[in-house]
């Protein structure tokens, strides 16, 4: 267990030192959300109705942006081989790195989401539901993303392929995230069936995705 925590702490420290990852994701989130009203027109009612979907799509794209770095740096400098030879199973290595990605990329996006929501005229009563649904759904983005990151490891232009592989996996998260948020926005219960399915998606991804990612990493050594 301590090796798991050590690896996560190292990744958090690296993200902090190297900067970039968190800032880029936040900046991208802001830019995407800011250009949407320019394209859709200034009609506030229309923006408010579309806001849940637009915010979730912007979250998906921003989380995707830094995924190709997830295993790339460790593979490049040889750390990954030593990580694979440690006492921690490779599945746990993948899980620790995905969790660190969630903490450094998704969590800041989730916390910044209410600010972005102002730009899209999301009703202020829905801000709590926005943060909660995103907090519950975004771990799935990091864990599913780890599968794509490990599969495209070592490819010269892995980024676009990564998006092609991962975005279809993100669809259920998007569908249930937006539905849960819309229900809450229209005065329904926050803990609705779509919200619970969203939670289930995150939990299932947390268990299954590291297994798939580790298998892809092992194949990558050969």
């Amino acid at each position, binding site marked *: 267990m301590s090796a798991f925590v050590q690896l996560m702490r190292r990744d958090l420290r690296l993200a902090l030192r190297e900067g970039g990852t968190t800032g880029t994701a936040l900046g991208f989130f802001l830019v995407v959300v800011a250009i949407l009203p320019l394209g859709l027109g200034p009609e506030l009612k229309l923006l408010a109705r579309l806001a849940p979907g637009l915010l979730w799509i912007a979250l998906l794209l921003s989380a995707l942006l830094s995924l190709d770095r997830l295993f790339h740096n460790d593979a490049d*400098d040889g*750390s990954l*081989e*030593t*990580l694979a*030879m*440690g006492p921690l199973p490779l599945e746990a290595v993948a899980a620790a790195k995905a969790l660190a990605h969630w903490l450094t990329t998704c969590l800041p996006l989730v916390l910044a989401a209410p600010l972005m929501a102002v730009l899209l005229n999301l009703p202020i009563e829905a801000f709590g539901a926005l943060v909660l649904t995103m907090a519950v759904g975004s771990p799935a983005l990091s864990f599913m993303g780890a599968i794509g990151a490990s599969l495209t490891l070592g490819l010269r232009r892995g980024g676009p392929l990564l998006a092609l592989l991962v975005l279809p996996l993100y669809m259920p998260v998007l569908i249930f995230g937006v539905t849960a948020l819309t229900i809450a926005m229209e005065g329904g219960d926050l803990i609705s069936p779509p919200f619970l399915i969203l939670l289930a998606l995150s939990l299932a991804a947390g268990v299954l995705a590291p297994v798939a990612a580790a298998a892809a990493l092992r194949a990558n050594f050969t």
Partner: protein
Amino acid sequence: MKLVLDNVACERGGRRLFSSISRQISAGQGLLVKGPNGSGKSTLLKTIAGLLHAATGTIVLDGGMANATLSEQCHLVGHQPGVKSALTVAENHAFWREFLGGGGDPDGLARLGLANLAELPAGVLSAGQRRRLALARLLAAPRTVWLLDEPAESLDRASNALLARLIDERLASGGIVVAVSHTALGGRFTRSLMLGGTAAGRAKAGGR
């Protein structure tokens, strides 16, 4: 304790690199692997480390720990140093000490002559210093088998002697060292293995 390679063959990208390699390396023995470029020297080390699968044959550490795989009893120092430029030298070393299970030499950095650089970011190190930081990983946790792939690359004469001393110490304390190197690595390599060329014949002639 001995490292047993039994009829090992390896393939890379569909091409057979070598076959029917059989060796028994006992505790305290060093094996020096030689051969031309592309003859599969690094592949052999990675196969022993458990990162690659042998096409045929088995590799076991006879008398090793029962509850650990072979790869958990090996240190592999390869071409890439496994060093993070954004972390300091001390942080790099401390991470591997804790991640690899602890119990290592607390003076690992000092032994490699890096103590006075401990607080510098690893990104400013020279190639030789970086290599020494990678070699410090060997002392970060006690492991029986050391797999060294060109460990003397970019080391100066003094560091080379230091490396030879570390290897000799490891062998003297009952370790096993398998190294790929074009330069001399101290005197204790009593066994050698020649890979490549006309494969099997030369591999056998390499000395058993």
